[in-house]
């Protein structure tokens, strides 16, 4: 029997979370060592004797036994989780306590606790995302670095600094305190949103890597839905948004591996099961008075998912949703998308006007899709010379071969139109 895909990676997060609960957050590195040990053992034993009946339980039991060894051997040399007090000190209580902490339901809570701990207010948003990916999704520092197109050294520094902050916080986040939980939940949701976005829009040229990031974000947001305190309307909105976007992933790349512009995608390749799931979650997100950016973004994604093409898309509704989004969480990228929707609704001239009107467009100057949008509307307006210039500016900023190739094709289309005319 083959172990399931990404088994080690997923179990890494669960094991580190459970072990850190026992060892204390200041012993995060020790927890990571024990996990590494458990994987080494699995590798040695499974390759000779095949995968055990229940691989997750095998790994967890191995980690538990190693933890007991460490606790016995280093009982006096270290201090462990202050929350557990003296329970780990006596042989009478040690084994039953550890046993209890490794119960399946306890581990679910450990993962949640770790997720909230990673989103520490003194850790920057980018570092929070990196930390979640590293600790809870089992990505090595090198894998996080390549997912974010950052250098290994820079990422190692970012992660180790964030771990330092985490370790100095003395104890893990207390998920049993409803007020603290509610206060930090938005940061956790934001981190998962950014993780998903990195997968969906990110710079990594490797599609498999990007799809992995989306899946990891969806796996973690599902955990937020399972806990009554974290299953808020915003959590449902965020889940809906992820499903509705992920549904479109198969259409973004065509059969020969080329990036397809949104309106030229083969919509029959969109994942209808995910669209239905997204719609269900979106309906579920509508309880309570709270309207978050996730609700609005999910509604926009839903409008696209339910149109057959650009022509029968409900552009007026999408423009009004972008207006709402600008009111809740304004950003240059939201303004860009709003301008594109206006152009779709009222024609290329209106689109260009809106694009030029974006007040802080200098912040968009380094974003390839801003230039590509200008190029697209100029092209539609018949100004192919100007369009080609914009596409060239976008090309200079493109982040991976697929983007570059796509933009080169647009430039050729514009230049072809100039010569033909």
């Amino acid at each position, binding site marked *: 029997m083959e*172990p399931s895909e990404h088994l080690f990676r997923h179990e890494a997060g669960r094991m580190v979370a459970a072990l850190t609960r026992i060892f204390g957050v200041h012993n995060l590195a020790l927890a990571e060592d024990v996990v590494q040990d458990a*994987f080494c053992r699995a590798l*040695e*034993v499974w390759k*000779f004797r095949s*995968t055990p009946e229940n691989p997750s339980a095998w790994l967890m039991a191995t980690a538990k036994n190693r933890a007991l060894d460490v606790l016995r051997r280093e009982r006096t040399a270290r201090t462990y989780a202050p929350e557990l007090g003296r329970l780990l000190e006596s042989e009478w209580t040690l084994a039953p306590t550890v046993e209890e902490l490794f119960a399946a339901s306890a581990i679910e809570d450990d993962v949640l606790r770790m997720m909230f701990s990673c989103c520490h207010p003194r850790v920057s948003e980018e570092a929070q995302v990196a930390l979640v990916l590293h600790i809870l999704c*089992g990505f090595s520092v090198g894998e996080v670095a390549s997912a974010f197109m950052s250098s290994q050294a820079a990422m190692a520094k970012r992660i180790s600094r964030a771990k330092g902050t985490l370790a100095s916080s003395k104890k893990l986040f207390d998920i049993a305190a409803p007020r603290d939980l509610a206060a930090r939940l938005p940061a956790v949701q934001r981190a998962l949103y950014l993780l998903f976005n990195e997968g969906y829009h990110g710079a990594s040229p490797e599609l498999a890597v990007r799809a992995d990031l989306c899946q990891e974000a969806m796996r973690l947001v599902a955990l937020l839905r399972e806990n009554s305190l974290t299953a808020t309307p915003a959590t449902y909105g965020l889940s809906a948004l992820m499903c509705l976007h992920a549904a479109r992933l198969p259409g973004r790349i065509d059969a020969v591996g080329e990036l397809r512009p949104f309106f030229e995608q083969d919509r029959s390749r969109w994942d209808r099961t995910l669209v239905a799931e997204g719609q269900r979650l979106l309906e579920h997100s509508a309880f309570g008075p709270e309207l978050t950016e996730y609700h609005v973004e999910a509604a926009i994604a839903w409008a696209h998912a339910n149109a057959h093409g650009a022509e029968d898309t409900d552009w007026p509704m999408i423009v009004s949703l972008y207006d709402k989004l600008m009111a809740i969480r304004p950003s240059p990228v939201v303004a860009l998308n709003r301008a594109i929707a206006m152009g779709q609704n009222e024609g290329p001239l209106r689109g260009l006007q809106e694009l030029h009107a974006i007040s802080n467009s200098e912040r968009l100057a380094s974003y390839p899709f801003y230039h590509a949008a200008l190029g697209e509307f100029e092209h539609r307006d018949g100004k192919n010379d100007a369009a080609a210039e914009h596409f060239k500016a976008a090309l200079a900023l493109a982040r991976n071969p697929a983007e570059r190739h796509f933009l080169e094709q647009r430039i050729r289309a514009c230049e072809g139109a100039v010569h033909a005319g």
Partner: protein
Amino acid sequence: MSEYVFLYRGGEAGRSPEKMQQTMQKWMAWFKELGQKGHIKDQGQPLERSGKLVKGTKKTVTDGPFAEAKDIIGGYTLIEARDLEQAAELSKGCPILEVEGSVEVRPVMKLNM
């Protein structure tokens, strides 16, 4: 057909969970292929990396072996092959070679003279 022992040495640890899982799956696939081609006499066993070393007429027992990680034998397999050349060729598919490990191929001594 003659018998050979593959001794697996070293093999880098400290890699990401995903890479380790991939390495493991490669091992499983390699063993499966060798087995299907009728080369496995006994798939063998993994060995703990530490144990005791008993030495000399005084039979002193120490913890060991304290060799460097790259020299420690992590497991063995009993292989059937036509000759040493074929056995060495078969060992080239071993995934340990991709992670800085090595395979020692040793003929089992024959009893006929």
